[in-house]
């Protein structure tokens, strides 16, 4: 006699310790095996894009902070680049260097959070706190500069809200020196841990063509082996002056494009970011006004603009339509996390419930950005 079996619907979230915010995943499971994943989003929707239409161009900047709230600097920066393109503003050398330093520090902070919480999803507590310890130092650097630790509102259209603190360069150098040791520590404790490799290698394999078809960018795409980085391939700001590598997943522990590759690409990217910061610290001009190019009143001509930057999670694009007024007619954001969430159901099919946590951790979504 055959036993009658049925699929169990398991509702994971919006309040669940491992969904990184208010994501709700509707799982259909056969025992422990995931048959289907349906992500439900919208629990954090704040009408960001609609709000922008009622704001003047410079008032939108604090809203961008709140999208991907663990990489606010980059959100500010992307928006600033878009509006500057629309206005045709050229910002000063010093501003560009500070922006690069801030952006790369933000990338390290964001990756530290991503890797730490990825480890946490797998059950490793300690690397999470080690990475947080060093993320705190970055936040202290940001706080020293602009007074905020999470939502900076720092990079403005045409400039910056504050000049850097006199101690900033020295402290950043010290941080860069110390952070390499943390990366080694995390590598020893987590990356090359046998259990961690067992849990993540060959799990959630994202083939390169699927990744391209879904529009994945950032570490998720690079983990699948394609060296595509907007900092190199569509250079913005002054990234062409720095020497750095684009890291790709090589399938060192399993197949190219598995969760471990996506994890390790982030580790390597942090090291590359350190290199960029070091070069920028050496080259930064000591003189310069960071606010001279800030327009008093932003009234761009009619037209549209699309600007994209390499956010820690992937391609962050801003599409702005201007009708010649002081308010934008439309601001559309292309968030990387939203795109990456789409691949969840493909990646999870046939894996166990525990693997789903590894996959969710490895694509590293931020719900503030998914819902906006």
């Amino acid at each position: 006699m055959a036993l009658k079996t049925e699929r169990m619907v398991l509702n994971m979230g919006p309040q669940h310790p491992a969904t990184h915010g208010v994501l709700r995943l509707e799982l259909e499971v056969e025992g422990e095996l995931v048959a289907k994943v349906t992500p439900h989003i919208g629990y954090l929707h704040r009408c960001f894009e609609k709000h922008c239409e009622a704001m003047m161009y410079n008032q939108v900047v604090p809203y961008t902070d709140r999208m991907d709230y663990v990489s606010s600097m980059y959100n500010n920066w992307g928006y600033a680049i878009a509006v500057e393109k629309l206005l045709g503003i050229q910002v000063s050398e010093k501003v560009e260097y500070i922006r690069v330093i801030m952006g790369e520090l933000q990338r390290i902070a964001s990756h530290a959070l991503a890797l730490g919480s990825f480890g946490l999803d797998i059950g490793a507590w300690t690397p999470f706190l080690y990475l947080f310890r060093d993320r705190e130092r970055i936040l202290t650097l940001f706080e020293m500069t602009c007074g905020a630790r999470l939502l900076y509102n720092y990079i403005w259209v045409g400039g910056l809200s504050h000049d850097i603190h006199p101690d900033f360069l020295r402290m950043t150098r010290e941080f860069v020196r110390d952070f390499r040791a943390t990366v080694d520590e995390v590598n020893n404790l987590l990356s090359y841990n046998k259990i961690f490799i067992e849990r993540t290698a060959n799990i959630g394999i994202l083939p390169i063509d699927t990744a391209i078809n879904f529009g994945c960018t950032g570490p998720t795409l690079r983990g699948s082996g394609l060296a595509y980085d907007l900092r190199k391939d569509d250079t913005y700001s002054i990234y062409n002056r720095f020497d750095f590598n684009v890291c790709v997943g090589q399938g060192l522990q399993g197949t190219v494009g598995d969760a471990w590759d996506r994890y390790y690409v982030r580790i390597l990217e942090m090291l590359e970011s350190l290199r960029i910061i070091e070069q920028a610290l050496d080259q930064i001009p000591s003189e310069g006004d960071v606010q001279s190019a800030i327009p008093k009143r932003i009234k761009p001509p009619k037209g549209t603009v699309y600007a994209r930057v390499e956010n820690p999670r992937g391609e962050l694009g801003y599409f702005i339509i201007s009708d010649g007024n002081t308010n934008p007619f439309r601001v559309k954001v292309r968030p990387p996390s939203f795109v990456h969430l789409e691949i969840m159901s493909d990646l999870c099919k046939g894996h166990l419930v525990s693997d789903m946590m590894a996959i969710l951790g490895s694509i590293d979504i931020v719900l503030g950005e998914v819902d906006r």
Partner: protein
Amino acid sequence: MYEYLNELLGNQILAMLLTACVPLVFILLYTLFAVWLERKVSAHMQDRLGPMRVGWHGSLQLIADFMKILQKEVPVAKNYDRILYEMAPVLVFTGSFAAFAVIPFSSGLIGSQIEIGIFYLMAVSSFMVVGILMGGWSSNNKYSLLGAMRSSAQIVSYEIPTALVVLSMVMLTGTLSLSKISDMQTAYFWNWYILGGPGTGIAKFLLIPSMIAAFVIIYISTLAEVNRTPFDIPEAESELVAGYFTEYPGIKYAMFMLTEYTNMYAVSAVVVLLFFGGYHSPFGYLGNTLGIGWLIPFEQAFWFISKGMFFVFVQMWLRWTLPRLRVDQLMSLCWKYLIPYALLNLIIIGIISLL
């Protein structure tokens, strides 16, 4: 202990109750210390301070937590199975508490001097599975159910390597009594079974590698039996929230936590009894040197608790270092590696003991 109290009080039931209270008091005091230790160990491993406010270095934190937990309301899921739900935490705790009946803390403090101590211990500790399944099933929560399923699968499978190692030790010592096994490893630490046991000659040295292998196997499998990281799959908080006790609030939750810590000590005690000289001192006794006979049982209790706490500390150390395994990897570790090696070890120990 029981005989002494029986003589003193002249009442069997009273003496039994008093004897039973001793491990209970120990468990409560130990839990107070172990929870504090766990918090401090984790904190210092992670560059934190841990609790610092209540008492000296947060030493009274658990009491504060307990006061809070006592006041908690007990909300339950719809359509829960009341009888099973209420019974589960008690049953789980009973299982781990009952194990303490045969654990000899010293030559003078054994709850029950039964001859089949280790057998009884294995039997009652599997009692827990019933409680866990009941808790998971009755709370009418899918996470609890998954957790209970995982937990019972895990405990049942990992009992096999544990039993195989215990079997090999029983074969070697020729007794099931825990205090007798302990007494065989008396005098100095080179008589411990991890170092080949009390024998002399070539057999002792031949035994050392298989003893170390046996120790590793039993330590891993007991770690899995008590659901500690890297085997904390039943209560994997990033997947199943809290596993089988997700729906238990307040004092019932405290019962599950108490059980977890009690079990940590119980399995460490088994390891100590089998491989690390039981309650015997590694260096000889102060009581013998000074000629004070009554000091010896206290010294023994000190050594037993210290050795046990050391292994509890190792469990914490592992927990805060390692990630957790996946449920199928856990099973394959048990069935593909631990059981065959334990069997092989059993045969090797058998051959050596024939020499």
